[in-house]
């Protein structure tokens, strides 16, 4: 065995745990990024409508002014006691959706919490982008006879996203890092796995060292994706 030759290294079995956790981190982050971006867009657009502005501001301040850990606890423990019993049973029942196995409630709660939290920040970045689009652009779109929605979709939004791209990818990096908090509600992602490996092997440095490298790798992937789009 490798570990008997190099006693400092982790056994393949433990590396596999870590990689499995890393896979879950990547999956959760990616889906969160997609959903949070869509939700963020919606919120940013809704904030421009006078009658939707107040609920949006309430949502944004709740999400941005409370710790993510508390929010995750709230969705995992609090929501479970708030929603009807039947819903919880249905959510916890193993089933298959178009061949994809139904995820655990931990995973669902983590995704839900992380998405709502990240969407608030993303919405603010997009809104800053929208504010950054020249006033004349809106006037030009109106003068050409674009409806409010068409002007937003084809003129304002593409420019806003270009302006907001840097900060937006910064938020995506945060999503990857924030996903580690899901270990607190028992989701076996990378941080959870590294903790587990450490407990089993007592090789603290190696376990968290590998986890650190994997997180850095994931964040770098996001960074590279951001650069690619900028070019």
């Amino acid at each position, binding site marked *: 065995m490798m570990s008997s030759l190099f006693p400092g290294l982790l056994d393949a079995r433990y590396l596999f745990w870590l990689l499995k956790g890393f896979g879950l981190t990547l999956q959760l982050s990616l889906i969160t990024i997609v959903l949070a971006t869509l939700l963020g867009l919606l919120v940013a657009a809704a904030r421009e409508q006078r009658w939707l502005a107040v609920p949006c501001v309430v949502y944004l301040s709740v999400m941005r002014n409370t710790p993510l850990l508390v929010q995750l606890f709230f969705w995992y423990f609090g929501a479970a006691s708030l929603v009807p019993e039947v819903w919880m049973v249905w959510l916890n029942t193993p089933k298959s959706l178009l061949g994809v196995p139904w995820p655990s409630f931990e995973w669902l709660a983590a995704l839900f919490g992380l998405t709502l939290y990240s969407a608030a920040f993303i919405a603010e970045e997009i809104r800053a982008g929208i504010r950054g689009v020249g006033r*004349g*652009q809106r*006037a*030009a*779109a*109106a*003068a*050409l*006879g*674009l*409806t409010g929605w*068409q002007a937003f979709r*084809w*003129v304002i939004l*593409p*420019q806003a996203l*270009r302006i907001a791209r840097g900060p937006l990818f910064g938020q995506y990096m945060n999503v990857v890092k924030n996903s580690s908090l899901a270990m607190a509600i028992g989701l076996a992602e990378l941080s959870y796995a590294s903790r587990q490996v450490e407990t089993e092997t007592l090789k603290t440095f190696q376990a968290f060292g590998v986890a650190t490298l994997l997180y850095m790798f994931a964040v770098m992937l996001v960074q590279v994706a951001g650069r690619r789009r900028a070019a």
Partner: protein
Amino acid sequence: MIELKNLCKQFVQKNGQPFNAVDNVNLVVPEGEICVLLGPSGCGKTTTMKMINRLIEPTSGQVLINGEDTAGIDTVSLRRNIGYVIQQIGLFPNMTIEDNIMVVPRMLGWDRKRCRERARELMSMVALDPDRFLHRYPKEMSGGQQQRIGVIRALAADAPVLLMDEPFGAVDPINREQIQNEFLLMQRQLGKTVMLVSHDIDEAIKLGDRIAVFRQGRIVQCAGADEILAKPADEFVASFVGHDRTLKRLLLVQAGDVADAQPTLTASLDTPLQQAFGTMDDHDLRYLTVVDADGKPLGYVKRKDAKASDGVCADRLNPITITSNPDENLRVVLSKLYEHNLTWMPVLDADGRYNGEVSQDYIASFLNSGKTHGRQRAAPK
């Protein structure tokens, strides 16, 4: 045709007082004409124009386009049927030039092929190579090129009415002059009904079939350029068009107009000097142009040389140093005269034949004759 009837726009000021930005404006722009709304900033000219496509809702009054009250048309279809050249160009930086030009036609449901053809046609109208530019982004073009795109974007769907909000303000004077000329050439072919906002009197003179001078929300004078310059309605108009307004009128008259107003008097090489003197004496001239059999000028004879001489014109011929063509405006002609320290020069037609002359006396009497009113528009060069 655009008709504004008792158009008003009232804003409420910060102190709660109502303020009439546009105050009972009545204006008719006949089909195919360019009307320039001219005035200092804050005079209501832009507000007036924006009420036509309802970027600003009128407080009261009517806007009629080809006789139809626009109040009954929803803003989106109204705007799609009115070309609009926005201040500061206003191209969309996230779209290619082709997409920019075709925004309105696509919304009107034109198919891809028709859009593509139309884009190419428009590009060639402003002498931009479609293959080179259609797939570029606005920032990859010069300011002058962007300005041209701004104009053809407004023409894309071939709307009969065109509104232009200080359309040539964002480019340097040399480019502006050139784009204005191109625009006039295009307008001559297209015959759009154009309303153009400007604060530049020279632009107004150059482009406007008629000029409406605004002050504090009202039209103080609406007339052709020459009338505004020759007979400003009040001290405000006079000072706005500038105290050198008579010099500006020179822009509106061409050498040919002056030449046409005189009898064409010439002599030939073998005309006896005594006969030439008689012609000059009869018409109170100080010189007479000598032409060949085709009517092309060979030189001139002076009255004092001819007075007491025998012989023919060929004996006393003076060379002609400069000539003018009939399309040159009087400002250019006068400039040439001063440059060469002369008081007159012959006007030659396209074939080089003598067609009359322009002199300082002729220019002065022409400006006082009032003949400039029904002018034909100068061909831009």
